[in-house]
């Protein structure tokens, strides 16, 4: 790594003692010698193991659940179904008033994705819990499912989630989050060229070294200690408090040392049901995702579809940009309404464009609910934007890097979401990339600055 101090030197005072120093990490020796204690390193006498019975169907009505065989399985201590969960229908962003509650801790009457949790089995060993889970009999009536976002948005598509009523999240702005800036149609009308392209991604796994999980211990004082690898301690505690209808003062969460998150550990999935198990059995409970659960059950990065229509002039200026983004939330909201909205605030990218129209949709389908992941609402959008930029440059016969200089935002430029640009540094990054990659650009671009308009 190289620190290039010649850029923005006038904005820094290099007078610090500890900041800017490459101090060795105090936790590294523990990590590399196996001495760091993670939540799963805690073992307690009498600890039970929780395993889930999961839906084999993408969309189905539950006619009946029969746990009698499973209950007789040696080692089984407790079996939980929807009726055992005090506040079974929840949604995590209800903490910031983003509803409706649309997801069940344990399925009640219906499953909406393949892998959805239906019954929780608590047993003396992981093996006994797994074997007993296989003996739970669930009678399903399979329903038509929808997997494609376009299909899901058509009239007459199967309704994925009745708590929404339609297959998209309803914002206060309507069926999508909108950004309107300038007059996009006038921009297109005056453009030398129009280019409309569609970009697509599919779900991506966070792949942390340590899978999602927790260990819960009922304490003598009627409190519960939850050792967890959540990325958000109070967010998880407060949601658990709602789901369990238990005062937050009864809950004590311990964590903060996590083997990779990447956004995959901000859903509140394992803690509430494990605390409930500990409460109902009076024994410590461990609930840890297998690698298979981590990959196919825990929320992935959402698949996205991004349609970009641009109007561009022969001289390289982009004069209009219209973006329609679709986020595949899967069967439940989790963080997806936020991600789609974050996308609306990110487009049209780090460029100053006078006419912008953005619509971002959060769409429900019968697949594993997606949620936050590194670059939430932005990563796939940047893929689409920057491939589009390459296509536009080639369309008008311009060097792709020079084309970006022409459109790059600078301090004071008004963004589409009506915030003035501050602290821009795109131009300087491109100048340095031009040098480092030996990608020559005209001298006038090397003379540009993020500080000011003009050459």
């Amino acid at each position, binding site marked *: 790594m*190289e*620190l*290039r101090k010649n850029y*923005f030197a006038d*904005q*820094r005072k290099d007078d610090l*003692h*500890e*900041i800017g*120093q490459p*101090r060795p*990490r105090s936790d590294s020796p523990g*990590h590399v010698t196996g001495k760091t204690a993670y939540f799963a390193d805690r073992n307690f006498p009498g600890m039970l193991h929780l395993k889930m019975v999961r839906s084999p169907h*993408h969309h189905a009505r539950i006619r009946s659940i029969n746990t009698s065989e499973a209950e007789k399985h040696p080692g089984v201590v407790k079996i939980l179904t929807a009726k055992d969960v005090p506040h079974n229908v929840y949604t995590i962003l209800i903490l910031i008033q983003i509803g409706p509650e649309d997801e069940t801790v344990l399925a009640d009457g219906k499953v909406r994705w393949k892998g959805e949790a239906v019954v929780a089995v608590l047993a003396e060993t992981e093996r006994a819990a797994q074997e007993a889970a296989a003996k739970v009999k669930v009678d399903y009536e399979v329903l038509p499912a929808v*997997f*494609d976002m376009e299909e899901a948005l058509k009239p007459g598509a199967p309704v994925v989630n009745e708590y929404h009523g339609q297959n998209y999240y309803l914002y206060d*702005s309507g069926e999508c*989050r*909108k950004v*309107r800036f300038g007059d996009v149609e006038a921009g297109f009308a005056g453009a030398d060229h129009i280019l409309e392209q*569609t970009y*697509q991604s*599919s779900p*991506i796994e966070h*792949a942390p070294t340590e899978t999602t999980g927790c260990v819960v211990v009922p304490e003598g004082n009627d409190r519960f200690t939850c050792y967890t690898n959540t990325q*958000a*301690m109070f967010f998880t*505690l407060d949601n658990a408090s709602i789901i369990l209808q238990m005062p937050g003062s009864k809950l*004590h*969460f311990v*964590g*903060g040392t*996590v083997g990779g998150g990447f*956004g995959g550990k901000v859903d509140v999935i394992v803690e509430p049901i494990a605390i409930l198990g500990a409460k109902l059995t009076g024994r410590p409970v461990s609930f840890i995702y297998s*690698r*298979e659960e981590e*990959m*196919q059950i825990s929320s992935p990065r959402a698949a996205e579809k991004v349609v970009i229509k641009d109007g561009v002039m022969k001289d390289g200026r982009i004069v209009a940009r219209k973006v329609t983004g679709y986020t595949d939330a899967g069967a439940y909201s989790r963080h997806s309404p936020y991600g789609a909205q*974050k996308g609306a*605030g990110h487009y049209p990218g780090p460029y100053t464009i006078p006419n912008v129209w953005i619509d971002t949709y959060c769409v429900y389908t019968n*697949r594993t609910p997606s949620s936050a992941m590194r*670059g939430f609402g*932005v*990563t796939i959008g*940047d*893929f*689409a934007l*920057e*491939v589009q*930029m390459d*296509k536009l440059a080639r369309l008008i016969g311009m060097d792709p890097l020079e084309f*970006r200089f022409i459109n790059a935002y600078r301090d004071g430029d008004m963004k589409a*979401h009506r915030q003035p640009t501050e*602290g*821009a*540094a795109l131009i300087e990054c*491109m100048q*340095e*990339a031009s040098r480092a990659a030996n*990608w020559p650009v005209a001298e006038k671009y090397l003379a540009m600055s993020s500080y000011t308009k003009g050459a």
Partner: protein
Amino acid sequence: MAIRRGRGVAAINYPTGMNLGGDPTQALVHSTPTGNFMVTLSSVDLGQGMKQIMAQICAETIGVPTDRVVVDTADTDTGPHCMGTFASRGTHRAGNAVIQAAREARQVMLEVAAEELEVNASDLETDGQGNILVKGAPQKSISIFDVALSAHFKRGRSISGRGMFLIPRSYPEKETGAMKPSTCYAHACTVAEVEVDDETGEVTVLTVRNVFEIGRALNPKMVEQQLVGGSWMGISHALYETTEPYYPNRDHGGTDFNQYLMPGPGDLAQTEIIVLERPSADGPYGAKGPGEMCANPQIPAMANAVFDAVGVRIDTLPITPERILRALKAQAPN
């Protein structure tokens, strides 16, 4: 049939924090009787090194070496509220809270030192080595060890501080989308070079040159680790990863690391990292959040490089050999 070489560029920015939800984090700082400092948080270290960075920020602010600071996180019985570690917010939000708490603690520390030295607190400075000196008369000094002892056993003072950093929630305006989704933006420009085998569709990433502007590199070694890791993840997203390879079909999803494709050590390109620092107005010592941003620009840079190499656009991620071959076949004159 040939191995064809191409290169592509991408430039991006990235918002720090989750303003659209309201974004608070708190911190507490106190000294032990012998002048070490505890930072108490409920923030989560995901392995990215948050504990170390909070220790350096506290040490810088109080004016002691980093090894005099211990970070205690995360315990909801003792640590004050943090929204969580996500949205590139950890260093920015918690760092600001730690600075505020550490400043308050430093002020008490200087007041106690002033009483011991019989001078005004405003005439004192720290030497960064564990001592408090009178400005302009450094021979008149007291160790922070002695100041802490005095505070605890003689003066009856608590060398401690409370820190709070809150970005109030921004509600997007319904019709126009006017909003404040972030406080500051990190930036990047990446140039990737690839080789594409037009017979097999296989992509070999040769070099990935990244320029990142991150506000301030609080710990350059750790910044390097995060940025290199992010750049590798970008390669992985571009060419390999998905839980649903035939999306929107649900079949053939990987369930372990044999089936779920990711690059191995041999698949990772020569990676270059260059860092620029334009301090953010509201960041702790100017830092922005580069945690998420650093994995993004490689993806379009590689897509553009593949086009440059073989002349086909793959607009669907991941850019697999199958997709490249199908596109080449569709493009070939019959």
